[in-house]
């Protein structure tokens, strides 16, 4: 059964130096506040996993939390590049960043395999691209019935999976709706999980399109209203497009990023 606690206690309980940590949320319900709490707790040597490293991972990478990134698309959506990510990859600043690069289809299937207790997943993917040459975790696999050659990717089972959701009840049952990305998969695939929520309510009233995760699948729940900002929580907030644009300036050089970082810490 999920423990309902504060964000700082929850992050302290689940995230350790050296862990493999996945913060997910596909444009929507991104656990940004949890990422900043990881920065505040000065975690180091993390292997960060995320399909779409965007502002939250740019912040964590710039703060020096990560030694490796497993991902499929690293950008500021609708705006441009992630400057802290580029600085880490191109110049090793503030620490060198190893990368393991996939496609979205590959990453999504890696989480599916992880949630399913399988060591790998099969897809039609990567064919003819240069990704397999640089990524060890992409291999061919042959169909035992047709002989057709497809692509295998290994399961992702992070030490910690963190997502943001709209609501939890007092037993830690969680519901989220709207664009749900790989929320369910990352919680089920991870050894430990934390869900930050807009609101803890007495009873969940299930919404159309909502997914409900029973409290016994989750380790910690923390109420963090606005915890997805600048991304959004459908029904609670709108995407702060201006902040995404503003981040381009904040993150562009090390000095202005440093000022931002001092403010968070």
């Amino acid at each position, binding site marked *: 059964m999920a423990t309902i606690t504060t964000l700082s206690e929850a992050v302290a309980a689940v995230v350790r130096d050296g862990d493999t940590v996945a913060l997910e949320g596909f444009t929507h319900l991104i656990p940004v506040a949890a990422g900043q709490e990881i920065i505040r707790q000065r975690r180091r040597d993390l292997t960060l996993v995320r399909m779409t490293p965007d502002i939250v991972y740019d912040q964590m990478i710039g703060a020096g939390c990560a030694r490796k990134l497993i991902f499929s698309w690293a950008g500021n959506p609708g705006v441009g590049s992630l400057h802290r990510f580029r600085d880490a990859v191109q110049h090793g600043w503030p620490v060198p960043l190893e990368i393991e690069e996939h*496609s979205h289809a590959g990453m*999504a299937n890696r989480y599916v395999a992880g949630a399913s207790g399988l060591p790998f997943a099969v*897809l039609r993917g990567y064919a003819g691209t240069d990704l397999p040459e640089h990524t060890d975790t992409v291999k061919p696999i042959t169909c035992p019935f047709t002989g057709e050659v497809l692509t295998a990717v290994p399961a992702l089972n992070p030490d910690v999976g963190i997502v943001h959701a709209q609501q939890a009840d007092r037993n830690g049952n969680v519901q989220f709706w709207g*664009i*749900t990305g790989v929320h*369910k998969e990352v919680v089920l695939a991870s050894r430990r999980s934390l869900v930050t929520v807009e609101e803890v309510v007495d009873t969940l009233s299930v919404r159309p399109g909502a997914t409900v995760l029973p409290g016994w699948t989750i380790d910690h729940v923390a109420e963090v209203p606005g915890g997805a900002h600048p991304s959004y929580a*459908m029904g609670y907030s709108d995407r702060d497009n201006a902040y995404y644009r503003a981040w381009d300036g904040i993150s562009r050089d090390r000095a202005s990023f440093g000022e931002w970082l001092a403010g968070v810490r």
Partner: protein
Amino acid sequence: MNWTADEMMTVAAARALHPGTRCFVGIGLPSTAANLARRTHAPDLVLVYESGTIGAKPDRLPLSIGDGVLAETADAVVGVPEMFNYWLQPGRIDIGFLGAAQIDRFGNINTTVIGDDYREPKVRLPGAGGAPEIAASCSEVIVIVRQNSRTFVDGVDFVTSLGHGHGASDRARHNLRGAGPVMVITDLGILTPDPETRELTQTHLHPGVSLDQAVDATGWNLRVADPPVVTDPPSGTELSALRSLKE
């Protein structure tokens, strides 16, 4: 009515989408073009975004592929694994609409790194996202990209998404079901693959664009249709729909 080269490009891309087409839309120019088509000749266009929204009918241009307006207006919203596995992979989507940082004469696309060394790139780009499997699995691919010699290169630094590989039989060799790029729409004109060799050929020029401009903007020895067709200029209806969309 005057128009910009980008407006002409977007209008040309919108025109390429037939009514009822199921279209896998990336953010930026593809999304603008697809939404323009929906406002003009193809109101029943089915917009599919990789965030899981199927049949989205946004009333304003989304800034990201996961804007709330997409989920609110969609016929169905599915998880990202389902989007790729049940909807894209089996070939249910007619058109994949992609951009590019680099593109070569066979329509191969790079959105990963600029520079020879993947581990020490000159410029690190965002990476693959959904593009490799969109390029593989949609029945056809349309690329929208500005034509200049930095982008139109003689050999991409990294193949993120396979176009026609090294020529006619390459997609079949990789067992890909979709036909690959059938059209590259730029701010100067339109390129289509030669039916035999699959090499991109400049078949259309937008009004006021010279052949020399297109040749100069291309980093390889550009093949040209003789003569290239001149694209119809944007109509007043198209332009006003496009401009109101961007307000």
